[in-house]
């Protein structure tokens, strides 16, 4: 495939080709199956790299015919049946586990009571262990979306979820740089991710951005900001933020903030 043609494909797909050239180019594609094939490959590459997902036609090839005939076989049905049966057993087992978890919760309450007594005798727990006790990823809003503009946001969320905080920061920052209508949750995620990689300045900067925004999650920013200070061992700063949360019962985790403040005093 000659360089010039591939270059035109790239210009066409990226929108850099002027409209009068587009007409001729599309005519060329329609008339030449090889060019069409190359265009499709470049399209597939773009889709792969941008995380888009599109349906493709199923080719009528030897391989797809082999897949088709296997899928129709008794053997395939047996495999499917075994997988489904085991899935069913696992669901039942996990419900049982759920019930036994309730017993575990009851046991934990007893342990907690003893631990609390120990706390009064042994002194304050470290800010680090309090952070571990109070930080919950579940408190973060879900931000995963699928679409052209949000792929770096989505990739960041996935990296974050997998515990790759440095990678998450890189994706989130590039999402921010791209501008446009930003999902405000990105500031929360960035705040937490920076705190995880021990960059407290950047962490606070991002929390402040969401706290001062009109976002519904603004008060979550306060909660995670307090936790970030806690993680950084800055308990006085953490206390100031926790007091602010406690002062308004409608703030996110206001009760927990009160509890945590009690432990820090």
């Amino acid at each position, binding site marked *: 495939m000659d*360089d010039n043609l*591939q*270059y035109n494909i*790239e210009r066409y797909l*990226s929108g*850099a080709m002027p409209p009068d050239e587009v007409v001729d180019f599309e005519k060329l594609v329609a008339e030449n199956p090889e060019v069409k*094939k*190359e265009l499709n*490959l*470049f399209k*597939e*590459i*773009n889709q*792969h*790299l*941008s*995380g888009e*997902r*599109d*349906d*493709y036609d*199923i*080719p009528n*090839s030897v*391989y*797809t015919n*082999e*897949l*088709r005939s*296997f*899928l*129709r076989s008794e*053997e*395939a049905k*047996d*495999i*499917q049946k*075994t*997988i*489904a049966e*085991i*899935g069913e*057993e*696992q*669901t039942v087992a996990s419900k049982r586990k759920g019930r036994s978890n309730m017993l575990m919760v009851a046991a934990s309450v007893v342990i907690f009571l003893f631990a609390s007594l120990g706390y009064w005798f042994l002194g304050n727990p470290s800010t680090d262990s309090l952070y571990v006790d109070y930080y919950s990823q579940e408190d973060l809003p*879900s931000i*995963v979306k*699928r679409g052209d*503009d949000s*792929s*770096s946001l989505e*990739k960041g969320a*996935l990296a974050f*979820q997998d515990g790759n905080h440095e990678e998450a920061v890189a*994706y989130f920052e*590039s*999402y921010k*740089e*791209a*501008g446009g209508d930003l999902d405000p949750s990105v500031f929360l995620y960035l705040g937490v991710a920076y705190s995880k990689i021990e960059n407290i300045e950047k962490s606070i900067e991002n929390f402040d951005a969401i706290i001062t925004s009109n976002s519904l999650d603004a008060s979550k920013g306060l909660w995670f900001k307090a936790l970030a200070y806690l993680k950084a061992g800055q308990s006085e700063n953490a206390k100031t933020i926790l007091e602010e949360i406690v002062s308004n019962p409608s703030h996110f985790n206001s009760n927990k903030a009160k509890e945590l403040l009690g432990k820090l005093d």
Partner: protein
Amino acid sequence: MKFNSSQEIINLLLVNDRDCIQSIYTRNLDKVIRFVSKNKGTPSDAEEIFQDALFQIIVRAKVKGLQINSSFDAYLFTVCKNLWYKELNNRKKKVRNDIVLELKGEENNHIESILYQERWDLFEEMLQKLSDRCRSLLKDYFNKVAYAKIVEKFSFANENSAFQGVFKCKKKLAQYIKEDARYLMLK
């Protein structure tokens, strides 16, 4: 149940080994449920995706053999993620009422997902063959990093050279993909 390699697991799956399937569920289902639940799905969506992913891996192993270079569990998770994105995409299309969705049937859905995953594996593998600079440039470009930033970061003379740079990397990637025998099989 402990395994030494992905191949060992695949060999057991090929003979429909219940213990092996059970231990795959035990090790991985919760993680998939967490992922799907955080991405607009329910635990029962996750169970369905999990079953399809495992089934499609076995089908591929049966029909033409399958070699997994990473850990089996990590690969299964990737397949589950891709299947879930496909499902979300389908749901999005259903919401857009201007598109009448053709009912593809279970068989075509499996084939489509298998081909998609194989193309995904191939593209990922070929991306690893590119230089670090190319990979990083493509990553920034597709994350919609502003051209001005790309010019600065990669020391291009101007935006036009940055465009040329992206093009060259894509051309290299296209060449690697075309040279691989698997690409023809997916066509």
